């Protein structure tokens, strides 16, 4: 009797437990469905204008400003022809690639270096200097271009790529971002153990800190690459030869006296978006790949 009741209780509670799990599973299944629907909806809202931007490249000028275009048109070749007649677009592509790749590489390395420096070394002026870095982000940059031109002219760097590439080394945004990431992603104990192993400070940074910061560096890489790739004002002011200009300047040049040749411009935009997507795909793998776990086990 007693045994029976105990086993009955036990089996009941087991049943209860089972059904609870099942209910939970059903609940989480439902939650997953809802999440998926939301994700796809949001994706649609994001994708549509982007898709429309690509599709627009295949339409005639008279249609472009009038309609939200969603089906392919027949003017791609015409538009492309007008584009290449006016500007050496592939030369611009190469120019953009040179400027962007070098500036991104420099920007990433020095942002990581200085961000790590601010995060892990408790030197005397750490606080004030960091506040200074933040302050440099707060001055609206629109007017700076005039002084920048004068200065580069003094240095004799006008019409070269140096002013577009080297300043990438002082990116306050990148520094701040990687400092915050280093704060949480790079444990001090690991650095100490590196020091005990006899590594010097730069080796510790390269061998221990950099791998730990990879996901964030990849993310920053996307931001820096796209920002530089789309930069318009600086190259236009600094460079004097049209053939040295990067894509955005070349694309914007495609216009008649009174009107913009949208069709040709959109073909240019389509051309310029392709490498961005490639960079995205590459960097995105780095963000996903869980570098952290691997690094810790070493």
């Amino acid at each position: 009797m007693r045994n029976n009741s105990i086993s009955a209780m036990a089996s009941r509670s087991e049943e209860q437990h089972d059904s609870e799990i099942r209910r939970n599973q059903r609940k989480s299944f439902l939650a997953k469905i809802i999440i998926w629907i939301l994700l796809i909806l949001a994706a649609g809202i994001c994708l549509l204008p982007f898709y429309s931007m690509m599709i627009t490249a295949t339409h005639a000028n008279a249609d472009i400003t009038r309609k939200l275009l969603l089906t392919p048109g027949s003017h791609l070749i015409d538009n492309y022809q007008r584009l290449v007649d006016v500007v050496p677009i592939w030369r611009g592509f190469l120019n953009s690639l040179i400027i962007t790749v070098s500036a991104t590489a420099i920007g990433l390395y020095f942002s990581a270096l200085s961000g790590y420096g601010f995060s892990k070394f408790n030197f005397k002026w750490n606080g004030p200097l960091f506040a200074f870095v933040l302050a440099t982000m707060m001055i609206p940059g629109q007017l700076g271009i005039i002084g920048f031109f004068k200065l580069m002219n003094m240095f004799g760097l006008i019409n070269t790529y140096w002013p577009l590439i080297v300043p990438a080394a002082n990116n306050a945004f990148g520094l701040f971002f990687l400092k915050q990431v280093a704060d949480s992603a790079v444990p001090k104990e690991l650095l100490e153990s590196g020091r005990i192993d006899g590594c010097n400070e730069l080796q510790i940074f390269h061998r221990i800190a950099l791998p730990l910061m990879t996901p964030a560096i990849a993310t920053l890489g996307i931001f820096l690459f796209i920002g530089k790739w789309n930069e318009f004002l600086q190259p236009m002011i600094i460079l004097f030869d049209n053939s040295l200009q990067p894509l955005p300047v070349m694309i914007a040049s495609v216009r008649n006296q009174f009107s913009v040749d949208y069709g040709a411009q959109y073909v240019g935009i389509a051309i310029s978006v392709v490498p961005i997507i490639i960079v995205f795909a590459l960097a995105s793998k780095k963000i996903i790949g869980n570098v952290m776990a691997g690094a810790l086990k070493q």
Partner: protein
Amino acid sequence: MFAGKIDKSRYGYLFIAPFFLVFFIFDLGPILYSFYLSFTDWSGFDTPSFVGLANYERLLQDTLFFKSIYNTLVIWILSIIPQLTIALTLALILHEKFIRGKHLFHAIFYFPNMVTPVTMGVLFALIFDWQNGSANKIIMALGIVDDPVNWFNSPFLAQLIVASILMWQWFGFNMLVFLAGLQSIPEDLYEAAEIDGANKFQTAIKITLPLLRPVLIFTMITSVIGGMQIFDQPLMIGKGPENSTLTMVMHLYEAAFVRYEYGYGAAIAYGIFVLIAVATAFSMWMTKIREKKEGVS
């Protein structure tokens, strides 16, 4: 060992030296030059003539400048709250294991940030057109309104539209920042929590958010600094009814590059700088960044 630690901290200067070196060579000059211009009257062609504080005095009496501060704040608040909420939620969702094709979603949610301003301008003009816009067609078909809404005739609606463009363009960016932060959290912490029987919500509150704190602070502060300098989106919409979408930096741009009053434009720039500095200090105080820092180190 402690002595060694103190010694090492001076290496920090070496790590940050390249940053400051490049800053002094390339960036400081232009900044100082603009500062100098703010004390001059300069149309861009003649020699700047020194006028003392006149530009700043004018700034303090410029009602449009004060209006632009208000506009910027309204647009910023309307865009930043939903933007960060959506970004964080999406980042937490996309960080889950069961989501397949994460890459794809990363890219797609970031796409709006890559749409060029010209496309954006054309697109939003088409959507929010008074007579022919799709927004009006939809809400009229749904029976919400009888007559088409003249979006750009109402100051608040115009601000709301600019704010939604901003939100749409930037939530993916913040989502990626959050994801990078999430990826930096060691996996073993989650495993430990799972063994202790914590559910998803508990792990999010107890583990994820505290460890995400540095990245959250980063987002907060850069949103303040960047948000106060909103420019591209309102520029493509225009000044709006009653100048309601004229932001601070747009006001600067109009003075300097439309009216060729570079001296006054420079003064506006430094006015904006002071406001942003105050706003940033305030938000740092809000997040108690100092207390936290001392607690960590």
